[in-house]
């Protein structure tokens, strides 16, 4: 019989298990009527891990060349046992991940959780969203089907709007003047090496910030506590909060498996560079609000507008003096609601409005 105590001691001596234990024992999470939003971060993390795992599985069979990318995905879906499941999970979870990150960000914004001292958590999170969109954009092309090919054509074309280095940037993204097999190989590199590397680093920093600073309690709750109208409640991270997290993860897994089995992610037709573009090309849903906006305003203004708006969005916490003082900030709430409404409405228009 192995002596458990002995093994414990052996590890404890080397990695200071006792300290970790103590830390986990004492880690708590605030508990109040808005604490449901706390789970979104953990949910995003779970989906990201799911992406990494299914992504690694896809790498076993995927071939990143124009000649065989489509065929290899077809092979994964039809020949490899459960390949359809792995690929569908990867596709559904990808979209769910980006959606989750969006909701996570807006909930943080509306609860003013970015306020001092969590500005850097907010900034790192915003960059993680951009990375997630980069994942989506680069991953969309990899099955090398017609829709993805056309969407990538349109998407990369916006690079030319960047002053001075536009042409260069376009060629850098496409690996040439046109979207070709070179683009595919390049996007593959971004998708499985460059982006995961940066994301992992940034994610570690993001989680570390959350850990160092703890969860932010919303201004309204904080005021109630200060006024003695409510009690400061919290629950232990282990096991109470962790069980809740796990419940969410398991249910998310159920939804993804359900979708993947009933509606396996489609493969489409193989990309044909010679085929003319159909009239209604649309990028992936999380780009649609930007794409639709560019139909109403001059492209240059639109692209710059979004660049500047994005920058302001990242920097907003630094100017929110009111929230920092613990006072409600109606203006920021209105801005947040406006941005959410704008994105939702433009996205809907993008899907229902007839194309040009």
């Amino acid at each position, binding site marked *: 019989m192995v002596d458990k105590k002995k093994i414990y001691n052996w590890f404890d001596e080397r990695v200071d298990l006792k300290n970790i234990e103590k830390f986990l024992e004492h880690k708590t999470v605030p508990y109040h009527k808005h604490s449901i939003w706390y789970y979104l971060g953990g949910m995003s993390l779970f989906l990201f891990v799911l992406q990494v795992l299914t992504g690694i599985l896809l790498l076993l069979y995927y071939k990143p060349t124009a000649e*065989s990318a489509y*065929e290899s995905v*077809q*092979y994964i879906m039809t*020949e*490899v046992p459960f390949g359809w*499941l792995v690929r569908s999970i990867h596709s559904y979870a990808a979209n769910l991940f980006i959606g989750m990150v969006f909701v996570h960000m807006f909930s943080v914004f509306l609860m003013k959780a970015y306020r001092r001292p969590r500005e850097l958590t907010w900034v790192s999170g915003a960059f993680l969203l951009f990375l997630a969109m980069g994942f989506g954009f680069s991953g969309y092309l990899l099955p090398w089907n017609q829709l993805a090919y056309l969407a990538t054509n349109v998407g990369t074309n916006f690079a030319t709007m960047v002053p001075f280095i536009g042409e260069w940037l376009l060629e850098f993204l496409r690996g040439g003047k046109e979207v070709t097999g070179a683009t595919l190989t390049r996007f593959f590199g971004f998708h499985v090496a460059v982006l995961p590397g940066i994301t992992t680093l940034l994610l570690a920093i993001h989680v570390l910030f959350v850990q160092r600073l703890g969860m932010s309690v919303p201004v309204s709750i904080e005021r109630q506590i200060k006024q003695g109208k409510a009690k400061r409640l919290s629950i232990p991270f282990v096991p109470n909060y962790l069980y809740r997290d796990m419940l969410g993860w398991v249910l998310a897994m159920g939804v993804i498996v359900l979708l993947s089995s009933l509606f396996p992610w489609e493969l489409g037709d193989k990309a044909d560079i010679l085929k003319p573009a159909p009239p209604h090309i649309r990028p992936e849903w999380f780009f649609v609000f930007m794409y639709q906006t560019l139909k109403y305003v001059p492209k240059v203004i639109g692209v710059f507008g979004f660049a500047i708006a994005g920058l302001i969005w990242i920097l907003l916490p630094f100017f929110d003096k009111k929230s920092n003082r613990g006072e409600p900030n109606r203006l920021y709430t209105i801005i947040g609601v406006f941005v959410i409404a704008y994105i939702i409405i433009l996205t809907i228009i993008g899907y229902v409005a007839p194309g040009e």
Partner: protein
Amino acid sequence: MDEKIPRRDAINYLLGAGLVALGGATLYPVIRYMIPPKASGSGTASVSAAKVGDLKPNEGLIFKFGDAPAILVLRPGGDPYTASDYVAMTAVCTHLNCTVQYRTDLKEIWCACHNGHFDLQGRVMSGPPPAPLDMYRVAIKGNEIFVTSEKA
């Protein structure tokens, strides 16, 4: 308190068993996924067309090469263990895309649709086919006969 202990145990057992089963249900597809399927990989680069011994001398065999048929022939009098005694070429006739076959009586590749004849180098001997059949390279590895789209 005493009554609660068996209930707590029941939940623990249920949760534990559920997690183990779910883990198994997750691992099963993952492991099945990782074992490469019998059908050869995607793409048309190289395909295991047959096993040594599947073909006797002066016999032909149609196999799937990518999405299109191809034909493997062991020359009359050829040695089943010698790669150079096999020839492989596309089985898609250059006339109207019918699938060609090996005629053991004529020792030729023959298309039934319009009576096109090809020699064992894929060249048109008679009939309407306007162009020769593309030849593939044959290699034997162990017990398997591989056909590659690299020019022979």
